[in-house]
């Protein structure tokens, strides 16, 4: 790929990412915020493709866009996202938050520009970075972290089920309800 193309496309995607990320944190409707996040994630996937990481890019679309954000939407709908209503979802420390965020950006950007000045990204794939190489790396050098991640996912799966299921025996509310029922029976 030519350098000019790479740079031009990068700026297009960077604009998309920035605008939609600002949309995520300022949207006055929760579903719209989630949709802005989708745009951000797809923009990021495009940047990965520019950086020769197709496998990660499509994994991001599959897992992030296709599952995680859909789950978010699902959660929003289950918690009754107001249809067409625009509520106030910000708290009263907006100004302070903006100052902190600006400070974080200033410091990191300054440090990064200072330490990586003059480093050019390659415009072409110079080494093997295809899905095959990623797979070989995962199952040889990084097999232990891989196993750890799988254990983590299993734990999260079990945890999510335990937390969210409406188990009659576990929650304190049902215990209270049972006590109330028992008291009512005794009254009668």
């Amino acid at each position, binding site marked *: 790929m030519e350098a000019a193309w790479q740079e031009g496309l990068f700026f297009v995607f960077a604009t998309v*990412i*920035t605008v939609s*990320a600002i949309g*995520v*944190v300022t949207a006055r409707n*929760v579903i719209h915020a*989630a949709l802005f*996040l989708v745009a*951000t*994630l797809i923009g*990021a996937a495009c940047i*990965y493709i520019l*950086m020769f*990481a197709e496998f*990660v890019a499509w*994994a*991001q679309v599959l*897992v*992030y866009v296709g599952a995680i954000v859909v*789950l*978010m939407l*699902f959660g*929003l709908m*289950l*918690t009754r996202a107001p249809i067409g209503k625009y509520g106030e*979802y*910000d708290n009263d*420390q907006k100004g302070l*938050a*903006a100052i902190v*965020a600006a400070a*974080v950006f200033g410091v*990191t*950007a300054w440090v*990064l*520009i200072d330490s*990586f*000045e003059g*480093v*050019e*990204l*390659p415009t072409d*794939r110079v*080494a093997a*970075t295809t899905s095959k190489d*990623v797979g070989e*790396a995962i199952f040889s*050098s*990084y097999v232990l*972290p891989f196993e750890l*991640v799988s254990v*983590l*996912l299993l*734990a*999260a799966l079990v*945890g*999510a089920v335990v*937390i*969210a299921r409406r188990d009659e025996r576990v929650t304190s*509310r049902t215990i209270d309800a049972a006590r109330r029922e028992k008291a009512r029976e005794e009254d009668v």
Partner: protein
Amino acid sequence: MPLSYVLVLAALLFSIGVYGVLARQHAVLVLLSIELMLNAVNINLIAFSAWLQDTGVPGQVFALFIIAVAAAEVGVGLALVILIYRNRRNVDVEGLSLMKW
């Protein structure tokens, strides 16, 4: 293209995420902002991976791990949000001060 362009973009995304976490009060919106921050990290990893291509693909591998961790985080996070909603009928993080002393 200079590497610092990509890194600055990632820093910008991260700071927007920080703003979101601090300024939002709907629990799911806080989760969305955390996703923004995780993605900033991913962009960084991929950029370094593209720069250091001859040393293999550790950047890409760890980006994949981060995606997996994000999936776990959202799973548990949403379960908590739904439970909170069930008990309190709203999901404002401001209101969750029950355990404060």
